[in-house]
């Protein structure tokens, strides 16, 4: 049923129908019906379901009216005849007069609400009962939690930095501390969905996914890498340059270093999460590269070397 009031078309809301109860339903019946429907359509029970959220708001609105004896009386008296705008207008004017002279509607709270967004109730409710200000018995519900994934390179995860991104139309800027782990989740309080009936907003959970790096493997706070060295450096020792996430460093190789030798570079690993100045270690596995394309002279010299060893 649609009614016109001040040029606006508004739909009559059959609150009894919303709760699925009879017009003569007792307060206990209404409470039971509300609980049953609230369990079914509660946003917690219907994640990411806008239709359920909408339905839940309708149920709340119906409950708000039908569990308040004064609101219910008023609704029963005029609600059905909403289309008779003139009659309702008179009733409203009468009510204003009555309010100041202590009528049955005198105690009716036209002013609910504070932190309630009146836009969440129907126009019908707003016109009939006014916007809610002040207290109100309505249950507040926390908004939905949002989950997001943020991909980082190993290099990005190595340093504390800021990132800006947009979730559900909201731009969020966060500081990502150095040392975050793959799969780690952080919570941004109040950055999730809006609450219902003035309830608190949900939280935003961000899960970090750290892409594999071609040069380094991360295990906890330690890093592992591989470095090729030539045969002669392996045999005679020398200096090599090793890549770290912080730049290149010079490392001494001992004479007679075997293939697969692991060297530990203390403090050159990954930063420890939220522990400034603390770092894991870098383990470099040395892979000895054997020369190829030997000349005749090289072959002869290596044979001589070989003979010396046997």
């Amino acid at each position, binding site marked *: 049923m649609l009614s016109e009031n001040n040029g606006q078309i508004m739909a009559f809301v059959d609150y009894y129908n919303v709760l699925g109860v009879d017009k003569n339903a007792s307060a206990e019946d209404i409470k039971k019906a509300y609980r049953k429907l609230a369990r079914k359509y*509660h946003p*917690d029970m219907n994640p990411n379901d806008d239709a359920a959220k909408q339905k839940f708001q309708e149920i709340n609105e119906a409950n708000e009216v039908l569990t308040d004896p004064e609101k219910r009386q008023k609704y029963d008296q005029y609600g059905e005849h909403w289309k008779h705008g003139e009659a309702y207008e008179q009733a409203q004017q009468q009510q204003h007069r009555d309010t100041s002279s202590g009528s049955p509607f005198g105690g009716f709270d036209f002013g609910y609400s504070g932190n309630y967004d009146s836009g969440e109730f129907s126009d019908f409710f707003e016109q009939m009962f006014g916007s809610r200000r002040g207290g109100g018995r309505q249950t507040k519900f*926390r908004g939905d939690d949002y989950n997001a994934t943020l991909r980082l390179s190993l290099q990005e995860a190595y340093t504390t930095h800021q990132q800006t991104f947009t979730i559900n139309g909201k731009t969020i800027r966060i500081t990502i501390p150095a040392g975050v782990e793959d799969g780690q989740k952080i919570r941004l309080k109040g950055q999730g969905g809006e609450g219902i009936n003035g309830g608190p907003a949900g939280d935003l959970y961000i899960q970090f996914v750290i892409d594999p790096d071609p040069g380094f493997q991360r295990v906890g706070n330690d890093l592992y890498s591989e470095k090729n060295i030539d045969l002669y450096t392996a045999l005679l020792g020398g200096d090599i340059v090793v890549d770290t996430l912080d730049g290149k460093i010079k490392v001494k190789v001992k004479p007679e270093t075997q293939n697969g030798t692991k060297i530990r570079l203390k403090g050159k690993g990954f930063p420890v999460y939220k522990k400034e100045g603390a770092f894991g270690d870098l383990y470099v596995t040395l892979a000895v590269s054997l020369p190829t394309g030997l000349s005749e002279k090289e072959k002869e010299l290596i044979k001589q070397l070989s003979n010396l060893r046997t």
Partner: protein
Amino acid sequence: MKTTWIRAADVCKSHQIDIQFIRELSANGLIELFVEEEEEFLEEEQLKPLEQFAAWHYELELNVQGIEVARHLLTKIEYLQTEIARLHQRLR
């Protein structure tokens, strides 16, 4: 990472929750409650699920068994929604 412990009694007071309800949740493995020197404590990260369970209990009149079932099904829904989103992504 640093863990913050909160006295269960303080949570009960601030959230108007019956301690027995928290103990029941703990007995059913829905939250973790620790006892130290005869005092019950919760980890800070347990607060959020506790608040949610309390809302289900006091506002929707779910008992602890109902909460357990609801949580289990919601975990499944969440997994399936993620899976659907992933498959949608693959189809694009």
